[in-house]
């Protein structure tokens, strides 16, 4: 059991709070404005954000794991925080595939949480993610990678609004001869959806979708949609709510699954 001080609360940013918790070897869940970082012995084991599809949304639409297999793993492994192990142990997913997919999701979510680096909200010592231990990454590697990704995206088109705002097609812009993936991304731009929703719809990694969207913006084909005139209640995805309790993510998914039966 590690002793966690409250030093992290004096830090002005989520990344600085993470640095403090890492130095203390802390385990638990740190909530920020755009997601939650799960730490184990001071290393990052998972990151979740409402702005990125979770593992299930990446693995099931592609057929890498059949939906009932995914839910079976969540069902049997969720409460013990061993969903990842269950997927591998039951032969539904190769160990390497789980690690690659998990790291992809971890760094994609970290980008949203840390590129918009506001003060962390709270830390729940000992809280762990239902996915369970897959691979861990040092906090400084996650922070460094986020900075690098932000610079890479800004080099393509320096408008961070593309990452989070509803996106719209620029009228009369000619979109001939686009590479397949970029064209496919463009077809999902409808004036309402955000990059995260487009990534989910295509079952694509979010960072790669951001790259394509910033390229489309640089080509003058896509722009942030002007704000809607009437106050509309966002009916975004179930994950779009409040990030108060790490276990609510699991509960929401269970609820969605039950409703889908």
């Amino acid at each position, binding site marked *: 059991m590690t002793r966690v001080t409250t030093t992290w609360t004096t830090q002005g940013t989520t990344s600085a709070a993470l640095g403090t918790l890492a130095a203390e070897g802390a385990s638990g869940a740190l909530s920020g404005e755009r997601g939650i970082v799960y730490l184990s012995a001071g290393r990052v084991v998972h990151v979740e954000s409402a702005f990125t599809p979770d593992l299930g949304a*990446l*693995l099931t639409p*592609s*057929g*890498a794991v059949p939906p009932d297999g995914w839910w079976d793993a969540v069902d049997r492994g969720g409460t013990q925080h061993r969903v990842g192990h269950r997927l*591998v142990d039951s*032969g539904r*997913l*190769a*160990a*390497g*595939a*789980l*690690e*690659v*997919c998990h*790291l*992809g999701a971890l*760094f994609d979510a970290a980008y949203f949480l840390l590129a918009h680096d506001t003060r962390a909200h709270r830390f729940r010592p000992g809280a762990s993610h239902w996915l369970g231990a897959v*691979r861990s990454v040092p906090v400084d590697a996650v922070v*460094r*990678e986020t900075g*690098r*990704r932000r610079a*890479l995206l800004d080099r393509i088109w320096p408008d961070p609004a593309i990452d989070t705002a509803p996106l719209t097609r620029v009228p009369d812009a000619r979109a001939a001869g686009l*590479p397949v993936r970029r064209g496919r991304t463009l077809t999902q731009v409808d004036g309402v959806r955000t990059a995260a929703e487009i990534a989910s719809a*295509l*079952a*694509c*990694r979010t*960072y*790669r979708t951001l*790259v394509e969207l910033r390229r489309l913006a640089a080509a003058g084909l896509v722009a942030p949609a002007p704000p809607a005139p009437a106050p509309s209640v966002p009916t975004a995805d179930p994950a779009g709510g409040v990030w108060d309790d790490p276990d609510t993510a699991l509960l929401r998914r269970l609820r969605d699954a039950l409703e889908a039966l």
Partner: protein
Amino acid sequence: MPGIDESLVDAMRLPGARGASLVDWISGLALGAVGDAPAGDWEATAAETAELARHVAENGSLGAGGTAPSDREPAVEDLIATTADAYHLFRFVSTPFDSTVFLHLWLDRNDGNLALARIRLAEMADRLVLG
């Protein structure tokens, strides 16, 4: 079933292997690495080699014109770079979900066997994601 580290350790068993890594080519991030890094630093190596891989993966010229169309993405399987004393072998990993990774194997030119390494690295890439 091998994970990332086991696969890289496996790759290091090939004759002449100096270093191996798994790199995400869309971001330039090293997801794992073992042995020596070509420039002494895996992060820098990953960022540089990812630029090359990204160009090849995203621009159709090298993958186009084949007589056997495939769903494989990217169409290119490997890249090989040679220097006076080394080979660099890059193998794109084809996954059943959306991902953008390649294996990079750095081989000593005197001790390494490029043909053998190419076949083995392809097998390792498949085992990594398919079990």
